[in-house]
C-alpha cells in the first residue's frame, strides 16, 4: 500500500486511466463529439454568413466571418455535450452498479467526484482541440498562440460544465429520464447564450431573451473562450465561470452525500 498522499494520486491516475480506456473503446462517442460542431460550422454557419453580419465587437478588431464568430461557441458546445455525456455515464454507472465501486473506495467522496470531473474535462479538451485543428486547417483563421492560451480557460469551462452534469446526475434516478436533459438543459443553454449570436443581436430582438442570455452561465463559458482565443482575458466572464464551477461542484457533492443529498431519499445507488 502507498503512503497517504500517494493514495490520492494513485486513485486519480486510476480514474483518469479508466476514463481514457472507456473513451478509447467508445470511438463513436469521439466521432459524434466531433461531427456535431463540424456540421454547425460547415453547414449552419455557411448558410447564415450571408444573412447575419457581425459588426466589430471585442475581442475582434475587425469584421469577421460568421464561421469565425461561432468557433468559440462550438468549442464550448463540445464541452457542454461532454459534460452531459459524463453525467449520462454516471447515471448509467449507477444503474449498472459500477458507481458503487467508486463510492465505496476509502477516499473522501468529494475527492472521488473531483477526480471524475478532471477525467471528463481532459476528455473534453482532447475533443475541443481536435475540432479547433480541423476548423483551422479547413475554414477559419485562428491565432496559433490563441490555441495555447485557451487551454487554462478550457480547463475551467470544462470543469464547470462537467460539474453541472454531475449535479444533474445526482438528481436523475433513471437513464430514461435523461432525454429531458436534452430538452430542458442542453438546448436552452446553448441557444440562449452568445454561442451563435452576439448578445447585442439578442437585445435587438428581445430584452427578455437578452436578460436570460446574460444570466446563462454558458454565455460566460463561451465569452471566456472567445477572449482567450484572441489572447485577451475577459475577467468578468472567467470569474463567473469559476464561481459557477464552485457552486455546481459543491451542490453535486451535496447531491452525492448520503446524509444530505437526493440519494438519501431513495433506494441505495
Amino acid at each position, binding site marked *: 500500500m502507498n503512503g497517504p498522499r500517494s*493514495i490520492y494520486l494513485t486513485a486519480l491516475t*486510476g480514474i483518469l486511466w*479508466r476514463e481514457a*480506456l472507456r473513451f478509447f473503446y467508445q470511438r463513436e462517442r469521439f466521432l459524434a463529439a466531433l461531427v456535431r460542431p463540424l456540421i454547425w460550422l460547415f453547414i449552419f454557419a455557411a448558410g447564415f454568413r450571408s444573412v447575419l453580419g457581425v459588426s466589430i465587437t471585442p475581442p475582434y478588431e475587425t469584421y469577421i466571418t460568421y464561421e469565425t464568430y461561432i468557433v468559440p461557441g462550438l468549442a464550448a458546445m463540445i464541452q457542454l455535450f461532454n459534460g452531459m455525456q459524463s453525467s449520462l455515464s454516471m447515471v448509467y454507472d449507477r444503474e449498472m*452498479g459500477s458507481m458503487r465501486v467508486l463510492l465505496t473506495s476509502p477516499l473522501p467522496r468529494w475527492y472521488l467526484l473531483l477526480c471524475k470531473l478532471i477525467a471528463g474535462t481532459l476528455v473534453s479538451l482532447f475533443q475541443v482541440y481536435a475540432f479547433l485543428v480541423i476548423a483551422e486547417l479547413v475554414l477559419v483563421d485562428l491565432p496559433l498562440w490563441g490555441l495555447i492560451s485557451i487551454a487554462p480557460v478550457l480547463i475551467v469551462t470544462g470543469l464547470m460544465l462537467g460539474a453541472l452534469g454531475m449535479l444533474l446526475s445526482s438528481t436523475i434516478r433513471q437513464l430514461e429520464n435523461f432525454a429531458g436533459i436534452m430538452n430542458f438543459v442542453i438546448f436552452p443553454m446553448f441557444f440562449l447564450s452568445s454561442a451563435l449570436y452576439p448578445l447585442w443581436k439578442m437585445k435587438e430582438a428581445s430584452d427578455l431573451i437578452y436578460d436570460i442570455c446574460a444570466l446563462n452561465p454558458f454565455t460566460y463559458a463561451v465569452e471566456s473562450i472567445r477572449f482567450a482565443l484572441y489572447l485577451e482575458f475577459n475577467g468578468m466572464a472567467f470569474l463567473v465561470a469559476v464561481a459557477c464551477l464552485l457552486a455546481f461542484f459543491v451542490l453535486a457533492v451535496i447531491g452525492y452525500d448520503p446524509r444530505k443529498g437526493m440519494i438519501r*431519499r431513495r433506494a*441505495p445507488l
Partner: protein
Amino acid sequence: MTDEACLEISDVSYAYGAKAALREVTFTVRRGRFTALLGPNGAGKSTLVALVSTLIVPRQGEITVLGHPLGRDSRPALAEMGIVFQQQTLDLDLTVRQNMLYFAKLHGLSGKDAGAGIDSCLAYMGLAGREGEKVRALNGGHRRRLEIARALLHQPRFLLLDEPTVGLDIPTRSELVKHVHALCAERDMAVLWATHLVDEVWPEDDLVILHEGRVRELGPVSEVLARCGAPDVFSAFTGLTQSGGPASDQSEADRP
C-alpha cells in the same frame, strides 16, 4: 482465531420515506466466522449491506467496522472491507485485469504490489489465464468469481457479500459458497453473507435471520435450531418468517 468483533451493528433503523426497511437491528460479526444473514426477499438485507458499505447512512443506531464507527469516519473501515454487491459492479467493456487494476488504484495499490496481488487473487479464484478477456465475454459464475477476487485484492479483514449467488446455476453456487467458507477459515476473515437460500448456510456458521426489517433469531446455527426446536435451518427459517414469530430479544448471550 480470536473473538474480535469485525462488524458491530447496534440498534440500527432505516426507512425509505415512511416505509421502514430496518427496525432496531443489532448483531455482531466476529473474526474467522462465516455469518449468514438469512432473510426472504424484502427482509432488508440489501439495505443493511448498503448501510455497512456506507452508500446510505442510518437514521438511528451505530455501525462499527473493525473499531471504526462509520458515522464519524468511514474511510479506515472501507479500507479494511471487501464488498460484493448483489448487482454486478464490473465494467463490462474493460478486461479482467483492467477491472482489477482500476480497483487496485482506487485502494492505493499500484505497480508491483498491484500486479502481484492481481495475479494471486485471480489464481485463488480460478481465473488465472483469463486476464486479457473482456468481462462481457465471461459467464455469470466467472463474473462473480472476478468480483470476489477483486474484493480480496486489498487484503480486507472483513468480507461483505450481498446475495452473491443470484442468477448462478446450482453447481456454481455451491462451489462459490464452499470457496468463501474456505477463504474465511484460511485467512481468518470475518464474512457476512446475505442470502435468501437456506442451503447456503452451513452447520458451523453463525446465523442472523432477518424478516420484515427485524432480527428474528441470531447465534450459532446449532443454538438457533435448539431455540426454535427445529431439525434444520429450513424449518427454523420458515417457522420464523412465515408465522411472523417474535423478534429476538438479542440479549448479549444470544449474539454470535
